[in-house]
């Protein structure tokens, strides 16, 4: 009896305060038990009508932010990301200045209206801190930082519409923006994701497929050097399967790379004609 009372007291004392805090917590992204859903129908088509190895429509536009030194919008299907690059410019925080290389900074954020649930996303939560870091380190790998010592390059990326694969879209947008800003790079970085659902490897997951709880492999490559710089994976996957999924994602990256190349070429041509060369 005494125990029971104790337990009740315990619940009473902690209960209400928790309910209060809970209300402010955002809904968990992953929806429960979608695992039984059919993601690839017998005809071999996915929910949005794509084939398993088909990418979503890509669209890119360069020079969308007039104030920035370089900027781009990148779309993968319904995922839309904007990136702006400032720099190389004077280092703001002198204590971070480096004498032999440029300082690269990156800030990733998600617009409040980017997802279905109208939640106010707290800035600087763990997820966006991590993605900021991942994008920064990925871009650092291709920027020739030692050519611009004592300076700073800022990359801002914002997700305008989130429909899966935001990380990849951000990296692709950042690459374009860096190229637009004329920052020296060894190679471009392109990224694409792939998953594994219903026993089929799927390229470029959308939101529904991404939130199914299956594996999600995001790959970023340097296409000319054919090297993997970014590799992230969640969930459980057999090693052999992982290899095929990674292979698929890499193929996706290469496709993105050829598209980005085209866009850059087009942009350069336009610049040429404007200058009247």
């Amino acid at each position, binding site marked *: 009896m005494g125990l029971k009372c104790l337990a009740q007291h315990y619940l009473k004392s902690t209960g209400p305060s928790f309910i209060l805090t809970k209300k402010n*917590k955002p809904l968990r992204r992953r929806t429960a038990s979608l695992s039984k859903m059919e993601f690839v129908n017998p005809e071999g088509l996915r929910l949005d009508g794509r084939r398993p190895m088909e990418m979503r429509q890509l669209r890119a536009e360069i020079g969308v932010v007039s104030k920035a030194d370089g900027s781009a919008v990148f779309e993968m299907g319904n995922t839309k990301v904007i990136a702006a690059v400032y720099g190389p410019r004077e280092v703001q925080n002198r204590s971070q200045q480096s004498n032999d290389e440029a300082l690269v900074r990156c800030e990733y954020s998600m617009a409040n209206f980017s997802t279905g649930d109208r939640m106010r996303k707290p800035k600087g939560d*763990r997820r966006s801190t991590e993605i900021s870091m991942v994008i920064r380190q990925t871009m650092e790998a291709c920027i020739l930082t030692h050519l611009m010592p004592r300076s700073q390059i800022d990359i801002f990326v914002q997700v305008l519409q989130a429909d899966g694969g935001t990380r990849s879209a951000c990296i692709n947008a950042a690459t374009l923006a860096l190229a637009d800003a004329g920052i020296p790079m060894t190679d471009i970085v392109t990224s694409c994701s792939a998953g594994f659902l219903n026993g089929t490897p799927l390229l470029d997951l959308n939101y529904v497929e991404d939130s199914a709880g299956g594996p999600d492999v995001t790959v*970023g490559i340097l296409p000319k050097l054919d*090297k993997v710089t970014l590799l*992230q*994976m969640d969930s459980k996957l057999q090693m052999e399967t*992982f290899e095929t999924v990674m292979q698929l994602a890499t193929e996706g990256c290469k496709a993105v790379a050829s598209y980005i190349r085209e866009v850059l070429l087009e942009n350069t041509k336009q610049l040429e004609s404007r200058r009247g060369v």
Partner: protein
Amino acid sequence: MEQRFANSWRMTVNEKKFIETALLSDLRTDGRGPFDYRNLTIQFGSEDGSSEVQLGQTRVMGFVTSQLVQPYRDRPNEGTLAIFTEFSPMADPSFEVGRPGESAVELGRIVDRGLRESKAIDTESLCVIAGKWVWSVRIDLHILDNGGNLIDAANIAALAALLTFRRPECTLGGEDGQEVIMHPPEVREPLPLIVHHLPIAVTFAFIGNQSIVIIDPSHLEEAVMGGKLTATLNTNGDVCAIQKAGGEGVLQSVVMQCLRIASVKAADITGKIKKAVELYKTSRDLKKIKRHPDSVNISNKLKDMEKPKLKLEKTSGSQSDDMEVESHSSKKDEHKCKAVIGGTSSWDPYSKVADADELKESLASQDVETPDQKMDVTPHEKQQLNVIDESLRDADPSPSLSVAAEAGEVKNKAESLSDAVKPKHKRKKKNLSNSDGS
């Protein structure tokens, strides 16, 4: 002096160059080969769910706690798992006070993803009332010393702490059956978490122009490396998480090579963790027996004293019931002892003294009033008692029907036995049998 020179750890050009050139001949500054892991020691605190992992010079402490909370709205029947990291400025001058830095966030996320996304912990078993109360498990990871490769060490610390953690058992009660009754550990044995598999993080670093791969980078090597890759695998050959956050690009074949090496190391580390946890659990079980040191003490003392004069018999006669129960406990020691000898070196000296025959002798000499059948509660019967206890608890629905039937049969007998014992000892007995079960 300018602030930017303050208190940062500096590396010389010489060290940088040396690490790279030495690696060309497969040598590392601490004498290891490229794929040698550092010495791993796992220790446990006095409380359940606390661990301290030492990997070379790196030291990480893991601590698991739990609390009843409301579940997330979209997952009403699942408990929650949260990981918090603390990079204390004590461990490394580059760690700053206040908000967790990027590396702290990354570490937490990698450990979190490895555990959560691969469903290593059974969260559904943490549910008490769907939609109302679930257990929220919190893992705190404290970095005590940074000697490099914090991620692997922290991951091992988290796993070791989770494996030894036990939450208090709670059942539903009250008029509407919706009240949660918590049972303190003294009353009911706390329950361990259900861990399906152990996702082990193994970190590789890529150093130099040729991107030489090394495993388990030290503090120095981390300062030189161009990039790193953390692969989280379990012994079933599943890849649970991979993190290569930018940095030096590597060929796909190298990634696969890393994964293969990682799976070997993961098996290695899993073995070490399991062994350490096993040792801890046996010592914990032994400790539990020590909870009643008085009983063994008394019987021993009595035995010693009785030999010279049997006068004591009368005074101890009133305690006979007590003694009866206690004899079980010491007998239990006896059996545990046999099972454990050779396993652990730290053995309770008391129980070694309590020889079974001697005990019987002493009991026979003092327990004049107790009937014979009582004396003969053999371990076999005791086990049956355990079965009953467990089936009575009904918290665990696992016992099969046949066992239950058998238990029912013995039940009558057992009741008659336990009738003879004062009710207040029931509790004690239960404890003992529970301890057997765990």
